[in-house]
């Protein structure tokens, strides 16, 4: 098997340039990066360093200007919108800074949502979500709507939603930014546990020191480029 097939993510010479009125803004410059399955990687850097944009290009939320991106062995660069939607559904889980749960669905329904789209049968969906809710201390809150949950609880539901559908990769954009330090620490512990026990691949975009400390690999970005890439013990 070659590197592309074994890696959860591989980027090759990726550029992302935004057109803002008459001006071009380069958010990501020539980034080549490989993230293997089971990694717990943080993309760190100050605001405007391009970490979120890189995360978005990996997740197929925005298209690259130049270069190639492979996710779970599939080149996403020229994929149709339909194929990209399928890739996101089956291979990628997202965790957002603002939780982004669907307000009209309960915690259980939110967590089930990707599996509902995948066509997983109801009993299997429920079983997977209940198990993860138990692991994350969310048992008993299944029927609550997001508006009735704290920020930390909402983010835990978002993590369950991202993980329950068994994707190849979970992309988390500043997952702890809206949480207090205790909730943040608990969430990180929970994700580390899921990574260790279930082998879920996590990639974070963050400038939170706690996340960086917890990560097994830290990729620092500055001005759209990779500045350093270190493995941590």
């Amino acid at each position, binding site marked *: 098997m070659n590197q592309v097939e074994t890696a959860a993510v591989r980027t090759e010479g990726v550029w992302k340039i935004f057109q803002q009125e008459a001006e071009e803004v380069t958010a990501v410059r020539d980034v080549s990066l490989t993230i293997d399955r089971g990694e717990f990687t943080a993309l760190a850097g100050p605001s405007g360093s391009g970490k979120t944009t890189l995360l978005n290009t990996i997740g197929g*939320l925005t298209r690259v200007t130049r270069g190639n991106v492979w996710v779970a062995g599939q080149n996403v660069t020229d994929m149709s919108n339909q194929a990209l939607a399928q890739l996101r559904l089956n291979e990628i889980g997202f965790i957002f800074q603002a939780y*982004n749960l*669907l307000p*009209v669905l309960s915690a259980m329904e939110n967590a089930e*949502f*990707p599996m509902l*789209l995948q066509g997983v049968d109801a009993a299997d969906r429920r079983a997977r979500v209940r198990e993860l809710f138990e692991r994350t201390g969310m048992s008993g809150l299944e029927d609550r709507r997001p508006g009735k949950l704290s920020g930390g609880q909402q983010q835990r539901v978002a993590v369950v939603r991202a993980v329950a559908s068994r994707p190849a990769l979970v992309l988390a954009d500043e997952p702890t930014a809206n949480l207090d330090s205790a909730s943040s620490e608990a969430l990180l512990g929970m994700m580390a546990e899921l990574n260790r026990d279930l082998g879920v691949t996590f990639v974070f975009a963050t400038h939170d020191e706690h996340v960086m400390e917890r990560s097994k690999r830290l990729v620092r970005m500055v001005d759209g480029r990779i500045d350093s890439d270190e493995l941590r013990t």
Partner: protein
Amino acid sequence: MHIRVIIRLALRNLRRQLRRTVLTASSMIVGGGLLIFTYALGDGSHENWIDAGVRTGSGHVTVEGPEFRFTKRIEDRLSTNVRGEVEQLLASPEMASQVLAVSARLTISGLASSPAGARPVQIMGVQPIDEASFSSFDEQLVEGRYLEDGDDLAAYVGVGLMDSLDLRLGSRLVVQAQDAEQEIAAQLLRVVGVFRSGIPQVDQSVIQIPLHLGSEWLGVGGDVTNVGVVVTDSDTVAGVAARLDSELADFVSRGDAYVMDWRESTPALASAVALDEFGNHLVWGVLFIIIAFGIMNTVLMSTLHRYREFGVLQALGLTPGQTGAIVLAEGLTLTAVSGFLGVGLGLWSTWYFVGDGLDVSGMISEDMTFSGVLIDPVIVPLFRLARLAQVFVFILAIGALASVYPAVRAARIDMAEAMKFER
């Protein structure tokens, strides 16, 4: 599976903004109800005008000589042979169920005179029993009685003409007209009854006499000037006319008969109905454009407030098309439910007036006429199933159209940008 998800999300989103949903639905329900009610009133009015017009005139369908409608001369009359054929056809089992009344008339222009003076008149020779079913002249009696089968020299005269000729019940008058030999022939009549139609032109000029008397006086034998038909259901007019035209093809091709419906025989009435319908459609069109903008506003506002949510949905695996479908489903659900309730409200409010009708006599004068038709101040709404379906489909179409733009906006979002969107 995705369709169920889309519908579930659409329903939950409608419930989420309950006040906005209820307000928009209310405007659609009231609009739909109003549309049904005004359609029923409009259709009822038109039916009333048409019924009054055709009964005073020559029926929903009339068979007459091809030139008679232009010349009104006795030599352009319908032969006894054609008249017999028409009456036989209309009495046949295939057509009888569609026919409410038939009247063979001998209608000619002439001069009526009394010691007080002379006036131009329209003399109608009629068979009293048939005519009583066909027209409403007998119901417009104000003095004396209507014509009877055994009457001789009897005349049923409009109230205006009575005044002009200074006649009383039982008075004698003389009518003169051109007979079959193109000679001027006179006939003495005695007034047995007086009617008031409310239409000045009719009250000042119409005299009805027994058909046999007219036939003898003018020497036309069994000939008449037209055979008029009133049908049971005005929707069948075209079918009855076509059937008669087809069955009488030999006479028609020889120029011995001509079949026409009320639109052709009374073009002024047809134009009046068409004009009124156009005006109604215009008002309803404006009403529904306003409602359409209301729906679009609701759905669009709901879409604009949920940019981040649409971004999340697409990030989770919905395609742009499926995201747009959620918005479209919201608009369609809202309009379908509102349309259904609107039709219900319209039916209920219309049903209330079906029995006694809506009395607008306070708004119009008692003898208001329009295109030669006396307007009945009591409007009885007319239900038509096709109208209900038409209104329901119309509301759905408006809802779908008004939801297309918000749906396209939702489908075309930039996911990365949508994630930055603050509620």
